[in-house]
Structures are given as structure tokens and as C-alpha cells.
């Protein structure tokens, strides 16, 4: 009979766990989640690429591209701290599962219209 108290207590208290798919946890403030970039602000300096301990970032100044390998990224946030123009940020959520291990490519659109090449 010593368990009656515990059984009654457990019957009357709410769930110990979250009812996951219907109820999700609010991420804490400043959680280091998925790495994102505001491409318009990026100056393609490549500091993030140099500082990254897992070397998951590729920056191409000529092609104006910024790539990240989400599977190599370790969510350390070093690139976010190092970025001189603060165009990188980390979302509160972790990366969603993906089917392919592809790089995530961002291309910067040309800011000035270049003159068409001479015929």
C-alpha cells in the first residue's frame, strides 16, 4: 500500500514529458543554432572562413558566393563573433534533417550594373 500515495500523485500531476509533435519547446535566447547569412550585408572578406575551426565555410570573392557545409558546422559561433559587418547570425533552432549532404550556397547579387562587354 506504500505506493498508493505515489500512484495518486502521478495520476493528478501533469505529464512529465512534452507531447512532442504538438508541443514544441521555445528555444532559449541566444542559442547557437543553424548558421544563416544576410547576403546583402556580406563584404566577402573571408574572415569567417579563416576562423572556422571545422573549415566548413567557403567564400569566393570573384563569383561572389558564400557557402556553408551544414554537416561540418559545429555550431560554435566563432564566425558570428568574428564577422566584421555582423552579417552572420545563428537561429534558435538546429538545422532540420536533410536528405542530401549538400553545401548551402548563397550568391550575392551584383550591386552595380556592369557595362555590357564590348562586342
Amino acid at each position, binding site marked *: 500500500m506504500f505506493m498508493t500515495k505515489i500512484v495518486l500523485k502521478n495520476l493528478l500531476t501533469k505529464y512529465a514529458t512534452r507531447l512532442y509533435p504538438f508541443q514544441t519547446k521555445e528555444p532559449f535566447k541566444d542559442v547557437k543554432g543553424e548558421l544563416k547569412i544576410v547576403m546583402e550585408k556580406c563584404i566577402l572578406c573571408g574572415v569567417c572562413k579563416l576562423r572556422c575551426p571545422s573549415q566548413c565555410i567557403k567564400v569566393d570573392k570573384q563569383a561572389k558566393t558564400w557557402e556553408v557545409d551544414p554537416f561540418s558546422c559545429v555550431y*560554435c559561433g566563432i564566425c558570428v563573433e568574428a564577422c566584421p559587418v555582423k552579417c552572420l547570425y545563428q537561429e534558435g533552432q538546429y538545422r532540420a534533417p536533410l536528405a542530401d549532404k549538400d553545401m548551402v550556397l548563397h550568391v550575392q547579387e551584383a550591386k552595380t550594373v556592369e557595362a555590357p562587354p564590348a562586342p
Partner: protein
Amino acid sequence: MARTVIPFGPQHPVLPEPLHLTLTVEDEIVKSAIPKLGYVHRGLEKLAEIRDHSQMIQIVERVCGICSTLHAMCYCQGIEELMNVEVPPRAKFLRVIWAEMHRMHSHLLWLGLFADAFGFESLFMQFWRIRERIMDLQEATSGNRVIVSVNCVGGVKRDIDAETQKWILDTMKIVEKEVLQLKSTIMDDFTVKRRTVGIGVLSKEKAYEMGAAGPTLRASGIAQDLRQTGYAAYSDLNFEPVIETDGDCYARTVCRFNEVFQAIDLIREAFTKLPDGELAVKAKGLPNGEVVSRVEQPRGEVLYYLKGNGTKFLERVRIRTPTFANIPPLLDMLPGCDLADVPVLILTIDPCISCTER
């Protein structure tokens, strides 16, 4: 009866990580054990050649998932010594707070795994449920759940504000209450006692001789804890190592169980003494020279040997982890025990194989 050789591991239900032991058994009594390591070797020390000294912080954090911040703390202390950087007092206290949170979550994880090892599933769940509160604290204060990446050369990266401090202290109160509720279950239970008391006795002399570290050493009656040396802010805190004298599996469990409460006390004390000030100082120059840095991890003493040559890359990083030191005592404990007690015995040294093999 003839001797039988039983391979134990590397894949075994009780082991979260791969460790192989070749057990020679006679009548279900273990006669000898030969270890084999190297299943999860990743060559992290070698990475020092291609990653600079500040990137190495993130790499050493990933030596072990359970004691990540302590690895980074040890590494940073070494680099700070090489570069003659004085860490601000607030950063020292914050380091202690995160380190003690890590110790708590590591010990609660171990207590759960240990309960699971002798088939006490519900106790395992209870401990891990409590541990989840600390994981939440870590996620909220540092941004990551497991790899608490807060250390940098010269201090810490994040601060704990007054509101979070209150939340942490409130959680400590809840954790203390919940862990105390489980005390009688793990300490006074008949089954638990039958599986642990008098099994795998490591005498005081043997523990010292074999170079045991951490709770494995302290459970044998040797009051040796690196926090006594007063690194970080431990010199300002009231600290006495937790010791047990029996040296058996039960003593090691009690030792770790009591260290959870000690960690709670240390966090409370650190918050009351937390000074104001800056979080980090800028480190100038490049590491040059040799240094040995030591820190007390949940499993024992970790040692970093760092050698810089005045460039941004370190010449040598050598890591000696506590589990490596605890394997010889384990091999000393195994002969004479029942084959059925081997999983429990192995768990009582709290093996962290990914630490050991780096």
C-alpha cells in the same frame, strides 16, 4: 575447470563507448583481463598542426562530450600561462560555475548509466530527468546543450546576468531536493548493495601505486583533488575533497553521489562571491614555450602539455585524460570478480573512451 577466454566489448550493451577486454575466465571467475583500445581514435592532437591555437579551443572541447568545458578550461589556462595573460576575477568565477554544472551533469549521467548497468531502468530515468534541468541551464547560459563553448584565451565569452543567476539558484534547489529523494533508492537498496558492496576493492596503497585519478582514487581514501591547488577561482572557495574509504564499487558510487551536492554548494558559493568586472582580456602575442596545465574533471585529473614555438600553430598538444589513468586500476580490480560483475565494475571507473583515445 579449464580456462575460457571471453571477449568483452567493443560492442556491449553496458558500454556507451567501445572498449575491448579479453577476459580469461575460470569457473565464471575472472582470472586476467587484457585491454585493447583505439577504436575511436580521431587524431585530435595532430590537428594542432593545421589549426591555430585559438581554433584548437573548439577542437579540444570536442575531445569529450561530457566534460567539454573542462577540456577548454585546461587548454586556455595553459595558453594563458604561455602568453602571460591574467584572467579577470569574474571570468574565473564564471569558469568555476560552468565547470561545476558540467561536473553535476556528468555525475548524474553516470549515476543513471550505473543504475542501468545493474538493470535498474527506472532509476536511470529518474537521474536523467534531473540531469535535463542542468542541460537546460547549460543551453540557456552558453548557447549549446552539451559543448559549453564559453572559454576563450583571456577569459570567458558569455556573462550570467542577475535574472539567470536566480534561475540557476532556484534550479539548484530543485535538483538538490530531487537528488536527495533518490538517495535512499541508490544507497540503501538491497539489490544495489548486493551488486556493489565489497566488489572490486581497490586498496589505498594500490590506488596510489596504480595512479588512479578522480573519484576512483578518492573512494579509496586518498584526499587528492586538483581543485585543492586552487586553479581558477577554487582558491577563493571553501573546498574539501569528497572521500570514501572502502574502495569498492559502492564507495565509488557514494563518492560521485556526494560530489553532486558538493558541486551545488560550490555553485552557490561562487554566485555569492561573484565579483563584478570585465569578462575577458585581450591576449596579445603568440604562445611560445612549454607548459603543463592540469584541471580536475568529473572523472579525475586531466593533463595538457602544450608546446608553442612562437607561431600561431602549436608544436605539440598532448592530452592525458583521467580514464587513461584509471585503466590500470581497473585491470587490477577485475581478477577475482564474477563475470556478471564485470560490467558494473567497468562502469565504476566511469570510462570515457573518446577522451582516452582522442
